[in-house]
């Protein structure tokens, strides 16, 4: 059961093909589409469907790397804080008169270094990532507050704002959606078609055994955390571009939503299991649910309670369904 991520060439069986978690997600997405289009007649318009994606592309970018982190049996609590730190460093350097793109590069470097810091502490100090990233969760956002105080940096150039707000040419396709899609395909190939993907599943299933079989566990962990820092910085910069300002409280609710999406996508919280398609489907499902809730004017505080319950059911539901359908 726990090695489903690894064993590939099983004989085809219709039952196991249709009993996959991804189908259930697709059913949920169809239900969400039906409900949303009942609430608003404009929902199914092409432009609306594309515009809807603006609201969860930054989430999606972090979701991709968080699924890697959870598949190897770890967690990164510092993602939202890292976004804020990168955005703040970009904002401050832009304010000091640096070129926009150099400022952006500095933001990316800062976030990546933050991720590297996490990775090195986790592998060198040998303490579970929960505690280390709980520390950097506070530290990174603290740095954002030190840099920005209670102020916000705005006045970014139009070229920069295009990244988070623009469309490709005259088509209705947002730039952010294209960036996300490229990343999603890349991450999917790494996870499912490369040696490193198989290493990740192996580490998540049995870290000690992987170590003994010569998999460079520590190096992979450091790489994934560094990549996590980079992706957070990218999400932070795109978010900044979309709302056209840097604030120290950017991404405060990201952590919960990202973890919810990853777990709902079928990634096991115990590591070693999950697929990229499931995670992306789950991202769109949550995106549509949020869009629907916004259509009927549900306040954000109620939304956060709903997300909390969804996080719980994201673990209970696959568990329960597996017990019902797959007990053979």
């Amino acid at each position, binding site marked *: 059961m726990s090695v489903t991520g690894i064993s590939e060439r099983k004989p085809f069986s219709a039952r196991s093909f249709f009993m996959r978690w991804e189908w259930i997600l697709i059913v949920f997405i169809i239900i969400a589409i039906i409900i949303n289009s009942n609430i608003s007649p404009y929902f199914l318009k092409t432009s609306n469907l594309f515009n809807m994606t603006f609201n969860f592309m930054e989430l999606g970018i972090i979701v991709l790397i968080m699924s890697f982190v959870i598949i190897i049996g770890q*967690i990164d609590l510092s993602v939202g804080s890292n976004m804020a730190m990168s955005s703040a460093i970009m904002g401050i350097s832009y304010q000091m008169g640096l070129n926009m793109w150099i400022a952006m590069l500095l933001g990316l470097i800062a976030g990546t270094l933050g991720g590297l810091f996490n990775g090195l*502490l986790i592998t060198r*100090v*040998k*303490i*579970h990532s*929960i*505690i*280390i990233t*709980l*520390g*950097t*969760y*506070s*530290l*990174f*956002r*603290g*740095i954002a*507050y*030190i840099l920005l*105080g*209670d102020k916000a940096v705005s006045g970014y150039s139009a070229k920069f704002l295009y990244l988070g707000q623009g469309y490709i040419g005259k088509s209705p396709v947002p730039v952010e959606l294209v960036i996300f899609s490229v990343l999603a395909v890349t991450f999917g190939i790494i996870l499912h078609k490369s040696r490193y993907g198989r290493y990740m599943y192996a580490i998540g299933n049995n870290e000690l055994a992987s170590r003994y079989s010569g998999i460079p566990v520590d190096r992979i962990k450091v790489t994934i955390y560094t990549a996590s820092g980079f992706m957070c910085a990218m999400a932070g910069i795109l978010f900044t571009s979309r709302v056209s300002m840097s604030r120290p409280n950017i991404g405060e*609710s990201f*952590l*919960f939503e990202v*973890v919810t999406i990853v*777990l709902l996508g079928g990634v096991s*919280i*115990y590591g070693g299991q999950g697929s990229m398609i499931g995670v992306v489907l789950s991202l769109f499902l949550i995106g549509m649910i949020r869009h629907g809730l916004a259509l009927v004017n549900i306040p954000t*505080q*109620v*939304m*956060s*309670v709903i*997300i*909390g*319950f969804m*996080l*719980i059911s994201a*673990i*209970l539901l696959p*568990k329960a369904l597996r017990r019902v359908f797959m007990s053979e």
Partner: protein
Amino acid sequence: MEKSVVKGQQRGRLLRRILARREIVLSVFILILIAAVSLRSPYFLTLGNFKNILLDSSILMIIAIGQMMVIITRGIDLSVASGLAFSGMIVGLIVSHNLGIHPLLAVLMGMGIGLVLGSFNGFLISKAGIPPIIATIAAMIIYRGSTYIISGGTWVDASEMPYGFKQIARGTLLGVPNLIFIVIVVSLIFYYFLGHTRTGRQIYAFGGNPDAARFVGIDVRKINFIVYMFSGILSGLAGVLWVSRYASAQSNTAAGFELLTVAACVIGGVFIFGGSGTITGVLLGSLLLSIVINALNTIRVSPFWKMAIQGMVILIAVITDSIISRRFEVTLREGGGS
């Protein structure tokens, strides 16, 4: 069987030695810190300021004791601060609408609400088998969001609270401030519970080696439920005390406080991989943290630095802890060889 008992005793003696050392180290560190800060600011060493530090640390101590029990079982409870805000808000609202309520009843109500919240966490973790980090993160946002919803974004302030209620945390009993009195009672209760009752010892046994605990016949689910329940009750109690002390209940009360409780445990020598930790250590850890925070205020560090410093404190505590315990393991191994 006999062998494992002997091993357990050795381990116990070893842990006691580490912890004995930890408490001495902490006390020395606290004294150095006090000396250093009072050189910068004479106000720091006044009696009034010290009373403030003690009162500030007492609420942290109460929650940290609950957090310690959770960490001993290899879990973590990130919902404590939201639970505090939730119970504080409900009790605050009830008290402001029924001015005649006896203060003791308000305290009991807070603990009751905490009991419900803690049992919810305990249920998710022990019965539904959700990992503690995920269950309590979910609980954290649910409780915080519910606090907003119940209060409608408004807050209960000092003028709406009866005198008796505000005296819960501000009054004195035989010359001892109530808060300190409550901390002493709570510490003694849990000192007895953890050290001298069967269930208390089972908590350590489970944290030290969950598999062994299961084979020995310890009701693992019960242990897992109980620690979150106690953590809930203590944060419910802390909620009432917080609202009474600061005479205001807001929906963002104590936001981020859960980090401090974890830090207090780590600094106090609670082993993050479970199985060990003492009340005295946690009390000293909380005291040290409160002194640091107070010192930052007296030497006028910008409040924007607070979060970053909190993070640094956790990381430094964890790293030194890991280095110390690793060195200790090495000396033990050498000692065993001779």
